[in-house]
């Protein structure tokens, strides 16, 4: 069994896969290879950014996992194109039935964003949307929740 944080990241990928028109099946996790213009369209990569934990009792930890949902686009205006994907992805992550996947998530919030682009053919750009997931785990077992 994987850790709760790993299962959340995988669930986020599942939530977006084939659900964001224009990105379609080009949803990746922790991809480090460069995105190429010949891959058939724009892409989303989900990177685990950080996780903080604090004890709320001897047996239970209160955690917040931050995932970077990185939207890679090419086009003019690239910010407008990336925004359309961000708008489509947001409700898929906020309204997802995580419990159906066995995950008890107390809160999903968009907490930060940044935009970056380079000059080049069709202006390659990246919008990073950070989502924070709050959840409890057992102190002795990071694969289990109370």
């Amino acid at each position, binding site marked *: 069994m994987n850790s709760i944080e790993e299962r959340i990241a995988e669930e986020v990928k599942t939530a977006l896969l084939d659900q964001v028109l224009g990105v379609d099946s080009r949803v990746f996790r922790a991809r480090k290879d*460069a*995105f*190429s*213009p010949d891959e058939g369209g724009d892409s989303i990569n989900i990177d685990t950014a950080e996780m903080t934990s604090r004890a709320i009792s001897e047996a239970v930890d209160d955690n917040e996992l931050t995932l970077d949902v*990185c939207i*890679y686009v*090419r086009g*003019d205006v690239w910010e407008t194109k990336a925004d359309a994907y961000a708008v489509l992805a947001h409700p898929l992550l906020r309204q997802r039935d995580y419990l159906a996947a066995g995950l008890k998530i107390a809160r999903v919030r968009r907490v930060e964003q940044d935009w*970056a*682009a*380079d*000059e*080049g*053919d*069709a*202006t*390659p*750009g*990246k919008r990073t949307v950070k989502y924070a997931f709050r959840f409890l785990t057992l102190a002795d077992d990071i694969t289990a929740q109370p």
Partner: protein
Amino acid sequence: MLATDKFYESFDRVGFLKEAAWKPAAGGPAQSAKVRFRAPTENVLGGEALSTDYTVRYPAAKLVGLKRDEVLTIEGFKYAVREGPKSSLDGSEMEAKLTRQGPA
């Protein structure tokens, strides 16, 4: 020293140049020129993505008036000028950065 136009003629004789056709958006006669067309792939976004850097270099006496958003046709593809053109060498050569639009 070889003047830029002679330099380009020499390049053309050995097959290094490609024909670029341009019909000015504001009207006027169509123009064409033999250009040095380059398309190297480069890393962008801190290495997270690849991008092809399409550029043309040509004698300043050719394609006069070319500017951003004008469209060149090179080897059956349309390219829009996305930056420049800017001069290089002693001002006798120009370079324009392009973005590929699709088949002509």
